[in-house]
């Protein structure tokens, strides 16, 4: 197990370098970052050259990348063009997005798994058909439609929630945005759990558990659920990274100043340092989440032995 973790950590290095290099190059061809700094007017060539030198933009790309990565490992993500440190931006943005992701994941786990278990146990009955239809609707309607619709109905028409989230972004305010962010994954978790439960329900070991005279709830929780949740856990785990990076649309709709919002602003203003910095952290989150899922897999399923 220990050797497996070490090997996985080593494997993360090339992935990390590849992903960050790619984003670094992409941001580089996005356009001249200096051009955005001078507002509407064209920059004075002398000032532009000076700025270029200041930010190290006159050096070759590979050198810029090397310097940048070197700084990143000392915790320095550079300075945005407006003079704000990128780490400062992260310190305000990430807690908000993490709260939003936590809300979304909770929805996936609680609502998704409960619906999946209920429908999986009653396959072919009206509950099952209804939920299945609903998940199909949720999956096929884009997030921005569900988001705007909920915002309009709950926020404006009925006034149950504030249509836009305050800068503090407390947990209470993030319930509806969290649900919107989770919606598509929630539908997938429901379907995945349903299939898995329905499949395992017919398995021999569940029949054994019934033949042992165990009460129904014990058969379901201890024998059926434990086995059925293995693929679901994998899905939810890998979804953590996707949710944090994919919150751009949701954060825009509800005006949440999180990672998605900062990334969006960064791209609009060609703020290279911000974009690269945030994406670098997201890549790390992705990699760590995936590693944890793989390790959790071994805990849940003893048949998987890591050599």
């Amino acid at each position, binding site marked *: 197990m220990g050797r497996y973790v070490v090997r996985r950590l080593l494997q993360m290095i090339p992935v990390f370098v590849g992903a960050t290099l790619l984003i670094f190059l992409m941001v580089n061809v996005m356009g001249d970052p200096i051009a955005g700094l001078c507002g509407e007017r064209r920059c004075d060539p002398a000032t532009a050259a000076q700025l270029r030198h200041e930010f190290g933009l006159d050096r070759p790309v590979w050198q810029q990348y090397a310097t940048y990565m070197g700084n990143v490992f000392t915790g320095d993500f550079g300075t945005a063009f407006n003079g704000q440190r990128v780490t400062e931006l992260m310190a305000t943005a990430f807690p908000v997005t993490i709260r939003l992701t936590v809300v979304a994941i909770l929805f996936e786990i609680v609502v998704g798994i409960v619906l999946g278990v209920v429908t999986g146990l009653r396959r072919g009955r009206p509950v099952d058909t209804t939920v299945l239809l609903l998940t199909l609707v949720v999956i096929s309607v884009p997030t921005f439609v569900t988001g705007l619709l909920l915002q309009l109905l709950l926020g404006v028409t009925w006034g149950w929630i504030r249509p836009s989230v305050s800068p503090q972004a407390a947990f209470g305010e993030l319930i509806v945005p969290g649900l919107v962010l989770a919606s598509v994954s929630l539908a997938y978790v429901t379907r995945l759990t349903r299939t898995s439960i329905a499949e395992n329900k017919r398995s021999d070991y569940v029949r054994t558990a019934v033949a042992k*005279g165990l009460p129904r709830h014990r058969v379901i929780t201890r*024998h059926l659920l*434990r086995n059925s949740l293995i693929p679901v856990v994998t899905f939810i785990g890998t979804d953590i990274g996707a949710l944090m990076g994919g919150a751009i649309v949701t954060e825009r709709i509800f005006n949440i100043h999180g990672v998605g919002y900062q990334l969006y602003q960064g791209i609009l203003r060609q703020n290279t340092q911000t974009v690269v910095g945030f994406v670098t952290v997201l890549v790390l989150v992705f990699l760590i989440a995936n590693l944890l899922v793989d390790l959790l897999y071994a805990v849940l399923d003893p048949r998987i032995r890591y050599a």
Partner: protein
Amino acid sequence: MLLEVRDLHVEFRTRDGIAKAVNGVSYAVDAGETLAVLGESGSGKSVTAQAVMGILDSPPGRITGGEVLFQGQDLLTLREGERRRIRGARMAMIFQDALSALNPVLTVGAQLAEMFVVHRGMSAKDARARAVELMDRVRIPAAAQRVRDYPHQFSGGMRQRIMIAMALALEPALIIADEPTTALDVTVQAQVMDLLAELQREYRMGLILITHDLGVVADVADRIAVMYAGRIVESAPVHDIYKAPAHPYTRGLLDSIPRLDQKGRQLYAIKGLPPNLMAIPPGCAFNPRCPMAQDVCRTDVPPLYEVAGDHGGERVSACHFWRECLHDRS
């Protein structure tokens, strides 16, 4: 009688129609007795056992008639809660493939201990100690260490021993073993059968041994019930059947066992296929495959004729021509 099944009917309602899996099966087992239930796949032998245990998949399965008397009580009239307390505690079942019948993500110790926790309300620690005892009892080496292992870490024979230990845990009065050795190597089969027979004698349990392997039956069974298309076609003390079958189907089964003195000759096989349970032929269900079939076999369902047995004990055959069958031993 420990267990008496009377005129049991089970059907499966599927999209394609109603499959009549069990059509009026009656059999009985006494304490300390072994009844072998013999038949091809789809003959209804496992479905009958599941109905007795109360673990029939329903829907689609449904018991449409009959009685299951266990220690004098009709199980089919009990509520699910009452039946659950009997399952595992007073009657237990051993399944065919222990690898799939044991939960892959729980240690064998946890799965054994569960019996004591649920049925006897024991503490986890006491239950675990009993689990180790049980594993010792079925002769699993180093039981105290292996109790923490998962099913996939055991060999096939050891896994089936764990299944036996689980069934034995609460010393039930009746054990139903559904093809307990089919998934095992031939050498291991004998060991597992011997163990099962030994434990049965020791605890004086009734044993229903479901199998399609006539070789297994001869050594351990007291009585044999042969099933075909959801019916019992012949039921007799084991020696009577081997000596002279009173039903052409039983004879066909016996003749299809490979024998050393028949070496070099083609092995006998009953021609045709078992009937479709949604369209069981009229008359005797076996008539399309029967070498002795007459017109009456295609119209009249044969009743269970009483056959005089050599060894005493009840003997019946569902063949209009059981006399001819019995004496025509060529």
